[in-house]
């Protein structure tokens, strides 16, 4: 009723205003001026100030200075001192102001009033009511079995101390987003080299870069969100003449910055990497000292594929295995790997009547058949180009050279690979291992100008774990951790959806009962949409923390808790650009709008209600542990913490005078340059942190044996091979009318799904479309702007799925490939609507479409029909 009166009023007054306007134009000749007297007055009285904070959109927390007029933020600009963005911002960084003032934000806690699985109807609730309800639903589950409380998180931001504390304090099961991102790549790097990360080059020094599916002009690659590496890449081009080879079905990612474009066929990267390995061996571009000293290349492998090991001393602990043996050319006999003077890399040796070979010899034999001609066919390129790239890579590596950095002489190998989302293919884990092996052959890992993984060479805890992969007998917990299906398991929510649909198949007895969604929106964001639509209704209770009603919340939330956007504390986050170390904290640019609140506060209140806030093992103690806050800086376990005080304590503990005020004043704390001894694996106190690089994955083979033993199907064990082994991806079994590969990628103007409701960004990025080569389009009778139906096919189940979109011609994509950017397919905030579908509606998850490490592939075969 009031609505109608208001509308009528608006209409009447508009009409009146209109008439006056016309009248004034004609009768009084009013020379309408663009000055708004009232706003002018306003401007004179307005108080201008600035607040330091960090970007809340992207994943690298760029430093931001927010300009405010009377406390209203009017502009966000880059913070000059921040090493990651050096006073600049990307379009999202600038435009997040549109998200802050978005009237579509959830303004109060919401409680569902209609059935789930459809557009939600909610009523506004008080924080007390909403939190009480969540507590009431959660407590019994925690009492029964806390593991049945699923806490699901997406590409969250900053240091995960407050959320981790919540999981620890409640005992919930955590599922992350990484299996949709690049976890398979992390697993490969952790497995082969040790540090946590995927792979990236040492931009300051490198001269030749295989930009392997790095979306240079639009996305992050390993570790960063965007700005930092494009800056470094350009500086390297100008200063060192860095050459960029874009290995990608699309040229657009590198744009004008590619010196060479190798339009590879999707999902065939492993074949390419293996052929490069073979060529490097043929050309003898091998860093033998590195291979001998820092990798398991010389380890002798028996006919069973396992290492030959020294006897275990009698007094050793139970379970200890003997040291792997190598053949010492100096003595002509075997020796433990760390005792040999000159371990052999090649050859065959008969030890105790058994012929054994160094792993490297096996590798040589393994790749022998992976000729450039063989790979050219698979990858859709030519043998010459593969040879040429191998030759350049090997030559540019300058094997044997060294360089003095920070007074330390370190091997200099100015070649590298940037490969992040190469992990998002069916063979992802092993493909990444093959790529890392390319770098290993020339001794590039941890070298100056060479192959880096993390910003410092620190060995991840997984490295050791991978020595012995637990493959247990069922029943399994619903994440399938330590199962015969995925001995290495990234925790793919899509697999959980599969498990929920058929627990018996996966030998799972207990399914999660309730779920809390934190910074995550699986339905449009993750593959595959249908699996989530089919399973989220099975939860007894769903709570969602989000600034807008996400699509997942819309369909399935029982309770929605409105979180603040930039108006909250989060952090501390790294401000490092890999050369300068620093820390930053997200500071609220103003008080939270509406009734929204920062997550930290929300979790504190929720834990209080769940009775897990205070005391030993409680949330506060977990915060102390995870941030960490130590000694006199630790939070008292019996007092409800204040959020600003948490960061104040942390800042003081780090030795910053003034505590949090330091950040309020400076925005970023620059700790100084990262020394060579931390960055380069060769230069760390013990080189490479003592990790032996696994060219040969013995433990993978061991796991495979166990999988077989436990009766796992071939799909689960076939990629657990000691050496990356090519096989045709499952999708190739789709009928031939599914003639095109579909891939997806990021747009520079959007961050996953979380920005798609910011109209400022949609204005720049446009709507969903299907990139298609003009040649292909012509042969399918399509032209620019045509409506099309894209139909995908599941080669395992025969299922098909369809979406509608429009044709966007591009000569910068392979003719056998079509592309759809991520970021679309939302419907809940109203200006998400009508932008087109998500490619996740076409992708499949589960067998054939996930890696051996339970990571999602973003490839499927499709056909394109006139719409």
């Amino acid at each position, binding site marked *: 009723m009031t609505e109608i009166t208001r509308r009528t009023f608006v209409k009447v007054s508009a009409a009146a205003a209109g008439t006056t306007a016309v009248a004034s*134009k004609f009768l009084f000749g009013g020379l309408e001026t663009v000055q708004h007297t009232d706003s002018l007055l306003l401007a004179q009285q307005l108080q201008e100030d600035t607040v330091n904070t960090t970007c809340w959109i992207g994943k690298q927390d760029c430093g931001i200075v927010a300009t405010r007029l009377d406390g209203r933020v009017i502009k966000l600009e880059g913070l000059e001192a921040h090493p990651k963005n050096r006073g600049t911002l990307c379009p999202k960084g600038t435009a997040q102001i549109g998200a802050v003032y978005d009237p579509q934000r959830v303004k109060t806690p919401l409680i569902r009033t209609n059935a789930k699985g459809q557009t939600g109807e909610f009523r506004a609730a008080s924080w007390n009511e909403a939190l009480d309800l969540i507590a009431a639903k959660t407590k019994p589950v925690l009492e029964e079995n806390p593991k049945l409380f699923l806490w699901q998180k997406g590409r969250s931001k900053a240091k995960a101390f407050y959320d981790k504390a919540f999981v620890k304090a409640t005992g919930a099961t955590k599922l992350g987003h990484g299996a949709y991102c690049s976890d398979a790549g992390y697993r490969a790097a952790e497995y082969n080299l040790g540090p946590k990360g995927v792979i990236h080059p040492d931009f300051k020094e490198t001269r030749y870069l295989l930009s392997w599916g790095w979306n240079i002009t639009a996305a992050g690659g390993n570790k960063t969100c965007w700005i930092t590496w494009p800056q470094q890449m350009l500086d390297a081009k100008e200063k060192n003449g860095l050459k960029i080879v874009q290995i990608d079905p699309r040229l657009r990612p590198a744009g004008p910055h590619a010196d060479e474009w190798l339009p590879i066929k999707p999902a065939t990267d492993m074949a390419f990497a293996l052929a490069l390995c073979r060529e490097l061996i043929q050309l003898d571009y091998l860093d033998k000292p590195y291979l001998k000293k820092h990798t398991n290349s010389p380890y002798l492998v028996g006919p069973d594929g396992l290492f030959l090991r020294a006897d275990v001393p009698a007094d050793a602990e139970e379970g200890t295995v003997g040291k792997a043996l190598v053949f010492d050319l100096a003595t002509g006999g075997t020796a433990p790997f760390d005792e040999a003077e000159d371990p052999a890399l090649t050859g065959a040796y008969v030890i105790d009547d058994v012929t054994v070979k160094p792993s490297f010899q096996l590798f040589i034999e393994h790749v022998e058949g992976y000729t450039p001609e063989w790979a050219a066919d698979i990858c859709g390129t030519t043998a010459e180009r593969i040879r040429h790239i191998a030759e350049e890579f090997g030559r540019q590596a300058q094997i044997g050279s060294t360089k003095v950095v920070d007074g330390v002489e370190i091997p200099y190998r100015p070649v590298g690979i940037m490969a992040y989302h190469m992990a998002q293919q069916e063979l992802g884990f092993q493909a990444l291992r093959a790529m890392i092996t390319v770098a290993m052959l020339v001794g590039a890992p941890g070298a100056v100008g060479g192959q880096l993984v993390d910003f410092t060479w620190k060995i991840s805890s997984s490295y050791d774990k991978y020595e012995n992969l637990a493959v247990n007998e069922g029943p399994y917990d619903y994440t399938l951790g330590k199962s015969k299906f995925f001995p290495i398991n990234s925790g793919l929510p899509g697999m959980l959806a599969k498990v929920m649909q058929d627990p018996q198949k996966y030998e799972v007895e207990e399914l999660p009962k309730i779920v809390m969604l934190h910074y995550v929106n699986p339905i449009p964001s993750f593959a595959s949409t249908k699996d989530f639509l089919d399973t989220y209704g099975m939860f007894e209770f769903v709570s969602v923390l989000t600034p807008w009603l996400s699509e997942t919340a819309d369909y399935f939330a029982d309770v929605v808790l409105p979180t603040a956007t930039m108006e909250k504390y989060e952090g501390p986050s790294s401000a490092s650009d890999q050369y300068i170390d620093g820390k930053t904290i997200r500071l609220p640019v103003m008080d939270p709008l509406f009734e929204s609140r920062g997550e930290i506060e929300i979790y504190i209140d929720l834990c209080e209600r769940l009775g897990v806030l205070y005391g030993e093992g409680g949330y506060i103690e977990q915060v102390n542990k995870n941030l960490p806050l130590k000694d006199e800086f630790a939070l008292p376990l019996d007092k409800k913490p204040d959020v600003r005080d948490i960061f104040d304590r942390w800042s003081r503990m780090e030795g910053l005078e003034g505590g949090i005020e330091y950040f309020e004043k400076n925005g970023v704390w620059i700790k100084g340059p990262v020394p060579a001894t931390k960055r380069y694996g060769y230069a760390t106190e013990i080189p490479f942190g003592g990790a032996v690089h696994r060219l040969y994955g013995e433990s993978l083979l061991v796991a495979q044996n166990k999988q077989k033993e436990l009766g796992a199907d071939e799909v689960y064990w076939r990629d657990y091979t000691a050496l990356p082994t090519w096989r045709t991806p499952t999708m190739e079994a789709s009928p031939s009318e599914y003639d095109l590969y579909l891939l997806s990628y990021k747009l520079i103007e959007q961050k996953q799904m979380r920005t798609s409701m910011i109209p400022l960004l949609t204005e720049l990025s446009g709507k969903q479309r299907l990139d298609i080569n003009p040649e292909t389009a012509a042969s399918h009778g399509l032209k620019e702007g045509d409506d099309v139906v894209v139909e995908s096919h599941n080669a395992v189940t025969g299922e098909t799925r369809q979406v509608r979109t429009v044709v966007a011609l591009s000569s910068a994509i392979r003719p056998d490939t079509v592309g759809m950017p991520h970021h679309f397919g939302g419907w809940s905030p109203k200006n998400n609507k009508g932008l087109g579908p998500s490619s996740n509606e076409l992708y499949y998850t589960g067998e054939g479409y996930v890696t051996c490490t339970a990571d999602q592939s973003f490839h499927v075969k499709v056909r394109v029909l006139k719409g």
Partner: protein
Amino acid sequence: MTADTLPTTDPGSIRRPNEELPQKIGQLSPSWIAFFIAMSVITAVGIYAYLLQINNGLIVTGLRGLGSMAGATWGLYVAYYVYFIGVSFAGITVAALIRIFRIEKLEPVARIGELLTVVSLILGALAIMADLEHPWRAIVNLFQYGRPQSPFFGTFTMVIAGYLFASLVYLYVTSRRDAAILAEHDSRFKGLYRILAAGYTDTREQRRTDRQVTFWLAITILPMLVIAHSTVGFVFGLQTGRPGWFGALQAPGFVVLAGVSGIGNLIMLAAIVRSATRTKGRITLDAFAWLGKLLLGLLITYLYFTAVEILTITYQPGATELNLSEALLEGTYAWIFWGAIVALVAAAALLTWQALTRRWSITVVFATGVLVNIGAVAKRYLIVVPSQTHGQLLPYSTGTYTPNWVEWAIIIGLFALGALMIGAFMKIFPIVPLEETDSP
């Protein structure tokens, strides 16, 4: 009511009043009433559309920015502005031909031409006003800050101010005698005629000065006409940054096409007047033949220009010109382009055939008038729009522009307004000058 029955008044020679005004002045037949109502309604719709536009901004039209917005910022309003200004060519030309070359045959259509000039200039001015969001600001600022360097300013001052003023003077001077005659009638308009006559009594002396004044006015207006139409051409022709606009032929092309549309319109109007008033005998077939020949001459010149234009745009054009000429010759605008060419060529053929056979038919000449005006409107549209949508020099995506109902309502409203003005004139004043024999 013949001349000889009327006593002569001294010292002039105006005839005694008659019971009935000539040419059905003041008489409103049902069909005339219907005509006025219809035209008023159409005009009112136009005004409504205009108010909508003034209230909400030009967003209610099909116009949009050129370049990244991929539209046309000048559209129907500007095309018709150019068209209307072109039509104004007619009156002055004919008047000048009569005065300077003493082509008496055309005398009866002279006033139609003059009226056409005045009305079309007003419509042109209104069309350009329709294009402006702030018409009043435009008028004030043009006076206050006008910059003669701008071709636009030129068209405004020259065309609207100078040309309109001169035409009004011309129309007035050539009408005084008729006003004086009519003032002798007892009619509702007597007062008006008196004022118009302003003491004119048609003395020999007065007639002589009038002849002289009109002669010299004609002589001076003639170059003004060329300049005015050229400046309209310059609005486009001086723009090096607009493919398809820049060129030396632009200005002469404008003048000639102005002539084509003007004479075409004059022919149509004369034919209508001829059947709507009792003046059949006065506007002779000869007059139409003469106008037809004049039209043919202009048309052939214009077709020559067009041929040259097609040659230039297809002969080794740059990328943008190629894009543009493709759009014109085989793309989006081809139907308009070839439609215009067909209309113009057909008109030329019809006229040539008549000229060669020396068998003139008013209906056929009328038809050529219609044809050339269709052609002229189309050509005006084609000069204004495609260069914006298809002639970007930077790699903007191709634009589109479709005039929407608001624009059409306003333009059709303008035509209706023009019809109203001419109709009203015809009901107030003799559209065909009273016969020479009406006075000694």
